[in-house]
């Protein structure tokens, strides 16, 4: 019988620790039908803007809507690709340059489904989740991030 999936919290307060990513990989060791994982990690970049250099991004979200939408996206990706597992984590709050703010993890029997699903998930997360990044500058100010 297929397990019923429920909306999960995707939000993490603060940066995503590399140890959490390692632990998440280790947690899949018992799932021996997996043949390939695909991982995307978003990292805060020290962009140079005309107004100053980015030193951190402060993320806020319309959390209730984002979780509903993330669930919808998750279900659609599960329906489209033969995946064993899918995990999404997004940071909230202030994340400094060099730190990880997005962790997307897909697993499948064969690599292609995992890689394509991971790519599509990242694109949909950026385009459809009500999350905003305020870029904090070294010049005592901020600009709102624009996704390209």
């Amino acid at each position, binding site marked *: 019988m297929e397990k019923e999936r429920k909306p999960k919290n995707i939000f993490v307060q603060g940066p995503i620790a590399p140890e959490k990513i390692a632990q998440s990989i280790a947690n899949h060791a018992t799932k021996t039908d997996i043949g390939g994982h695909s991982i995307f990690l978003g990292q805060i970049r020290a962009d140079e803007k005309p107004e100053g250099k980015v030193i951190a991004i402060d993320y806020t979200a319309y959390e209730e809507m984002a979780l509903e939408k993330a669930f919808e996206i998750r279900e659609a990706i599960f329906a489209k690709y033969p995946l064993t597992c899918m995990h999404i984590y997004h940071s909230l709050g202030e994340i400094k340059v060099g730190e990880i703010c*997005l962790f997307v993890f897909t697993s499948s029997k064969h690599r292609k489904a995992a890689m394509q699903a991971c790519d599509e998930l990242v694109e949909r997360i950026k385009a459809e989740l009500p999350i905003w990044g305020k870029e904090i500058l070294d010049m005592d100010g901020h600009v709102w991030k624009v996704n390209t």
Partner: protein
Amino acid sequence: MSNRIHIKAFGMVAEKIGQVSMELENPGTTEALKNQLFDQFPVLKSMKFSLAVNKKMVLEDSELVSGAEVALLPPFSGG
């Protein structure tokens, strides 16, 4: 009977209007609400934002029911 709606503002929109939430008399439709907000906050006229009603994106003029939660959403920039 009271017919009010709840407004939530996020990101740059919240910053520009200086508020994250408001209660308003229900103007009836999303277009009427937009016009009312433009009168109250002229800064919104030059901003790009979308509306979500009860957590669903609204792409065309829609009726607002009493108690609706309307969110003002600037372009998303997660990830």
